[in-house]
């Protein structure tokens, strides 16, 4: 007994490693979004603000550049301000719903549903 305890064989290590790994995978979710609830809440809050402002800013920027290029001041800037606002709200919707940042809202929703379905199946 003592002999094996001193120098475990490779197979022993392998089985123990696998046991530890399967245990790790069995934990729900498995997404390493740890940290305290405080940090998480603040992170989400900062993200919502940043996403909204960025999208509006980018929209206005695109409109401004297009306006200067085409000489249509100020119509495109106003249009892209609204579109930027829409994009910002869409990005915030993604953050709040816990969707990822793939291009296309529909695809993001589908990806999340697939993820949930697969995790539900693995639970069974």
């Amino acid at each position: 007994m003592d002999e094996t305890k001193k120098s475990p064989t490779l197979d022993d290590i392998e089985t123990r490693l696998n046991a530890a790994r399967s245990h790790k995978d069995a934990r729900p979710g498995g997404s390493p979004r740890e940290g305290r609830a405080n940090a998480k809440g603040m992170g989400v809050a900062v993200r919502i603000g940043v996403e909204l402002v960025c999208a509006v800013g980018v929209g206005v920027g695109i409109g401004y550049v297009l306006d200067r290029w085409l000489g249509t001041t100020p119509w495109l800037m106003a249009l892209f301000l609204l579109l930027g606002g829409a994009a910002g709200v869409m990005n915030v919707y993604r953050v709040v719903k816990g969707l990822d940042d793939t291009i296309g809202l529909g695809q993001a929703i589908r990806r999340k549903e697939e993820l949930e379905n697969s995790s539900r199946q693995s639970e069974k």
Partner: protein
Amino acid sequence: MSSPVEQFQIQKIITLPEIGGVDVSFTNSALFMVIAVCAATAFLFLGIRNAKLVPGRWQSMVELMYTFVADMLRDNVGKEGFRYFPFIFTLFVFVSFGNMLGMLPYSFTYTSHIAVTGTLALVVFIGVTIIGFSRHGLHFLRMFFPHGAPIATAPILIPIELISYFSRPFSLAVRLFANMTVGHIMLKVLAGFIVAMGVVFGVVPLAAVIGITILEFGIAFLQAYVFTILSCIYLNDAINMH
């Protein structure tokens, strides 16, 4: 008492002549980037120098870091993404070492400057766009119009998705920069209260500073993680067009 934003001041350490009108002096920001790169290289190389089958503490830290990024890449991108593993790993190491070095007293946090985070985010954004176009050609543009949506909605949906796409580097850069800056200012302000409130009542802000320091370590890691995982998700878009 010094101002809480003084810690973010860029100072020239070695003044170099301008090259093409650009000041290329060696600053404290650059110094800490060099320190971060050296520390990361030393950490990784010394950790696996005497690699054993059953890893010691240091080696398992290095291996943990490797598997952490590898798992992230596998879960979000898949096997194809491993061609870009060196880049993603470097990104994670550079950002996390920068955030962690910033937690040392008297150090400089280069990730608290939007010039640094913005450059990193732009590299990711431009790189991912190039990868997308080189792999899929003009088909990459099809991503911006969802399947099954009525064609009449295209004039609204496509610009919205495009703006959302272009806002990526900004949100990526601002998130990292804002988190690091806010955390360091908060620490400095609260630490100032300790001095102002004296020996007896100063215990209260001191306790707060201790708590927030621990929180900041968490945020430093979390933001490096967020930056890397978002790069992975963007890469996934470019590689596996859905």
